[in-house]
């Protein structure tokens, strides 16, 4: 059993690197990656985008959530090579031109964060929701962030922040 694991390991680490082209926060990225590397590690270790966090590495906590082709995904469960050709947005890509986005401002205003470790993932799940549903109900917001664990806030201010951001974004869209 141990020997088999070792062999698998060798195979992984000596496997030839593969080409990855994708768009991260609007910028074209091209890199040679280990086919076993997760998208999370690619973002953090290769691109040095440390905003995206790892809370469990098993897809259970949501701290590593990023948006890939419009969908919120746990980047710890996605291989980097699966992101070939994809558009990826991380927390670093939320603001525009040095300004915070409405969603980020509402998180601040509603005190929707304490330790802040779940916040990037929480923001990305909320962003993905508002992109596909600009007028969500409270239940839809809770559903959208149900995969993002937060131990500090009790979620209430997060839900309020997302609902408030939705309203402000709709108003901004109309004006």
């Amino acid at each position, binding site marked *: 059993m141990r020997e088999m694991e070792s062999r698998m390991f060798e195979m992984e680490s000596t496997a030839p690197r593969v080409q990855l082209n994708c768009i991260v926060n609007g910028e074209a990225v091209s890199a040679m990656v280990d086919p076993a590397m997760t998208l999370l590690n690619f973002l953090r270790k290769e691109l040095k985008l440390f*905003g995206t966090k790892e809370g469990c*590495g098993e897809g259970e906590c949501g701290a590593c959530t990023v948006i890939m082709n419009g969908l919120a995904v746990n980047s710890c469960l996605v291989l980097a090579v699966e992101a070939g050709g994809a558009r990826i947005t991380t927390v670093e890509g939320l603001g525009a031109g040095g300004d915070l986005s409405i969603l980020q401002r509402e*998180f601040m205003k509603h005190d929707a*964060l304490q330790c802040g*470790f779940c916040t990037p993932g929480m923001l990305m799940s909320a962003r993905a929701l508002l992109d596909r549903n600009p007028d969500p109900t409270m239940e839809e917001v809770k559903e959208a962030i149900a995969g993002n664990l937060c*131990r500090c806030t009790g979620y209430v201010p997060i839900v309020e922040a997302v609902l408030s951001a939705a309203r402000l974004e709709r108003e901004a869209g109309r004006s």
Partner: protein
Amino acid sequence: MMVDPYYRHVGRPEIRVDARDKVTGRALYVHDLELPGMLYARVLHSPHAHAEIVSIDKSAAEALPGVKAVLTGQELPYLLGLYMIDKPILARRKVRYQGESVAAVAAVDERTAEKALSLIRVEYRPLPAVLSVDEALEARVLVHEDINELDYVKGVFFPGPDSNIASWNRTIKGDLRKGFAAADLVVENELTLPQVAHVPLETHVAIAQADPYTDRVTIWTSTQSPFAVRNLVARAFGVSRRDITVMVPYVGGGFGGKAGIHLEPLAMVLSRACKGRPVKVQATREEEFNQLPVRAGMRGRVKTGVTKDGKITAMEIYFDWDGGAYADYGVNVGRAATYSGAGPYEIPNIELHSRTLYTNKVYSTAYRGFGHLETHWIVERQMDLVAQRLGMDPYEFRMKNILRDGSITISGERINAWSGRVDHCLEAVAREIGWTGYRSEAERQAAFQTGKARGKGIACLHKAPAMPTNTATAAIMQLDEEGNVRVLLGAVDMGQGVYTIMGQVAAEILDMPLEKVKVICESNTDANPYDWQTVASKYAFMGGNAVIRCAEDLLRQLKEVASRALHCPVEELTHGEEKIYHIQHRDKALTYRQLALGYAFGNGNAIGGPIIAHGHYIAEGLTNLDADGQGLPALDWTYGAHGVEIEIDVETGEIRVLKMASAFDVGKALNRKLCEGQIIGGAVQGLGSALVEGYKFTPDGRLLNPSFTDNKIPTAKDIPDQIVPILVENPQVDGPFGARGLGEHPMISVPSVVANAVYDALGINFYELPLSPERVALAIARHSDPANAGCNDPSNASAGRDNPDASGRHAASPRGETA
């Protein structure tokens, strides 16, 4: 939001200073840090709860390319501990819990380190394990066979010779026999709760860089206790505090689990073994559950004597803590229970025994509430159980015994008019949820038929910081040439918002805009002033006072220079709007900015110099507890109460919280929004303990649920429909602007209040946590069984009926009530 017009900054719902960094992803945690030449560590764990280590062969691991060091307990003759010096860095000679660290590897990357682990061969000889409080008390097997030789803090903790008792602390007040003799009714119960994990989203992580030529070491760590880490590393390795630097950037949650010392010593010895290259040790989520410490499990046995009209005459309590393999903070949790473990009530005669027991399970430490959630699970359920037996409204029963001005606590402290008001808190939540007493059996039956049973509950709480009598903190302020103030604190902000409220306090005293007060959001033991550690809900109170004194020192220094510059006595100067000015001739004024680095007269002559102020605060007037638990341990008591309304699906047993009202006498809310954030967050964390969380072990002591899959915490879908935070403000005269601590309190008594509401809904009493759907549904099924017919008579209370019902255990457990 209500704002006090009297204050410019204090009380205002300011946005936290760290919010911008945290919504942009710019906030860096130790989790994110990479240093040049950094190596990565992985740890091998014991598969046995209790076993001898016969041999370890690490040669193959050491030979693996990329591996820089492999360490075992053999090479590390150090023992660590806060109160009992009992814990090796890596297991030596034997393992004491499944999950204990046995060997560690440092390698060029995590994958190589992981592979090296698989090459380490360990031979164990399993030993019989101690897996319950009863087995621990029997002491047929000793977790620490060398308990008689262990070093410990004497006079404060009381380990038992040749036993598994890490410490036996007690309170003895009044005359227990007389107290029970005066009672019309004696009610006895036993309640338990399991181990629970803290679950910070950032797992424990430390990086150490040890200078190979000297004793110097720099440690970056996700901790609540930079100065305690410095202190404990110095003690463990026999090196000077001068040589140790501890750096703490943003911390991704602590909840008590990052107090004290954890992965830092391992990172340090690995770095030493790797010729001083920095080594990063980060716990996986599984290690966070299974290697790092937890909240202890506990069994409480409680016996209360009451008169017919509801006055408590006596209480006898045994808290037996399932403390796991090492004492860590567990023994101090046990000690704190001796002065607060009977709840916020006046008990004339009491004997309270709190025994922290060694068992072969993952060890226990501080967890938000420091034992009070656990003790209040026992006593706040007992208050309802006694009220049921008395046929009295539990609200009325509590009010008859509640601590008030003039009451004496169980440790002999006199409560006064400025101690805060637990009765105000209870009143507030009862009003908010519309409490009118238990519903009748007929009402219960009617609701039961609809498939949704509803109930309401109430519970009280109190807690004071558990800390040494000489606990101290300090603050430093410096002015720059624009008149900005930099504030350096010893505290760590792990999300509770301490940097924000300390900025508000400083700006208030200095009467200047909040934007010009910069609180440094990082802790560095070489630069920041000392603070004991960020625990115990003590910092708003102590740090607030230190910051006030520091700001006053700053003003005094500004006035001294201004007095010479303006040629007028200091006594005739005052301050406001960033200026020092004459009390009568207000145009005789100098701005902070003009004075900040020294003042220059028109001819070039200069006086003064860069202004640096300091302020400190030490807990004064506290005394150590004597052998009977008598003394003054409490700097400030924060009182609180919860009220809930719940709905239970009688088919699935699922509990939904419709409304939760939580009131705390905070004295003065320094930032209303952050206070409410603590209350809501703590309430939901408490609901985790009430409804879903808890460790499960196999019969041979292996943890069954070391992952989020099986050890769930509340998600956004599990929160109450409505949470109403209530801030009661009866000022604490010696608190900063009247404030008291609040960080831990919202969690306390949440399980109790939910179980009290479950009784109201179903007429079933529960004695074990969590109140999972499975547990509730099974109890409903047993309760509705025709074999138990006639059990719905409330006068029959809970004795023979509910014990097996609710707990699923045998009626033989010594929990039966006697009148």
